[in-house]
């Protein structure tokens, strides 16, 4: 291992150490996700006023937009983990990449369904082959492709490396989704939240949106850690540390 990588990080990538670390952090992450989620729902569904054009229908934004952000963010994490897995062949990176795919697919699916429900009333159509919608659908297919490819191999580690390659190629789609509303003429509106410059949304609407974004981030950490722990157990089931866990769990 290169010596610019700190020792603790190197230790953390060992499956039993990460299993314990993830087990300790996971309850905090899900608790934080639930608290933030409830606050965001209260702010979004009760406190925020109806939109002057869309009435109460706009309230879909409080899940649609955070889920859309997560669909891209998780793909980014999966891409980075896939890169690390392919270059340094770290087992934990393979597991993280493969565990991220179903969570990302879930968020992408939610984004597409909620967007469809929103579009039906506001655009008058459930679906249109618009640049933003099509590239988000491609994102879902990429996630499903990664999951399918991973499971099509008898050897899990070989499957993970092959699927990691697909994940890495598919990362070109992430900027396409993000910039699609600027690059093409689309029915989908542009960004209302901007990191640089003023956002075109009222503060009473922006805080539930940002709180829900934080909640979904925490949920992702909790879900990822849960999946990673399960995958590590399955992958290392011949090893002593997993046997100890299997024995202790039956004793409880």
């Amino acid at each position, binding site marked *: 291992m290169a010596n610019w990588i700190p020792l603790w990080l190197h230790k953390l990538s060992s499956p039993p150490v990460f299993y314990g670390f993830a087990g300790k952090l996971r309850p905090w992450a899900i608790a934080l996700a639930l608290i933030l989620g409830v606050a965001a729902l209260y702010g979004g*569904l*009760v406190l925020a006023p*109806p939109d002057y054009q869309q*009435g*109460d*229908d706009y*309230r*879909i934004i409080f*899940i*649609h937009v955070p*889920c859309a952000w997560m669909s891209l963010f998780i793909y980014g994490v999966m891409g980075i983990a896939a890169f690390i897995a392919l270059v340094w062949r770290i087992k934990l990176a393979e597991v993280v990449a493969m565990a991220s795919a*179903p*969570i990302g697919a*879930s968020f992408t*699916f*939610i984004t597409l*369904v*909620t967007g469809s*429900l*929103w579009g*039906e*009333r506001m655009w008058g159509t459930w679906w249109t082959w618009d640049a933003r919608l099509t590239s988000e659908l491609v994102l879902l297919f990429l996630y499903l492709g990664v999951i399918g490819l991973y499971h099509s191999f008898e050897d899990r580690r070989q499957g993970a490396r092959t699927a990691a390659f697909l994940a890495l190629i598919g990362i070109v789609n992430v900027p396409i989704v993000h910039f699609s509303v600027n690059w093409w003429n689309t029915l989908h509106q542009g960004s209302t939240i901007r990191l640089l410059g003023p956002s075109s949304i009222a503060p009473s609407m922006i805080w539930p949106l940002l709180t829900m974004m934080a909640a979904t981030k925490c*949920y992702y950490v909790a*879900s990822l850690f*849960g*999946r990673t*722990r*399960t995958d590590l*157990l*399955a992958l290392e*089931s011949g090893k002593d540390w*997993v*046997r100890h*866990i*299997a*024995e202790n*769990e*039956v004793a409880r």
Partner: protein
Amino acid sequence: MSVASLQSFFAMGGYAAYVWPAYGVFFIVLLIDWLAPQFRRRRVLRELRARMARQDARKDRASRNSTAAT
């Protein structure tokens, strides 16, 4: 909170049929995502315990056979 205000909350200004299914999908999909790995974890550990029990039984039998032969 009065009944009327609760009713108007659930009515979502006439968009109830769009807003609530959206939130429903959000919660159901995430709930499945949350529960699926936990069931899988239990199955993985159960299968591992079964494999360990088989290995122990085989070892037991092997040691008994070897003592019986001598």
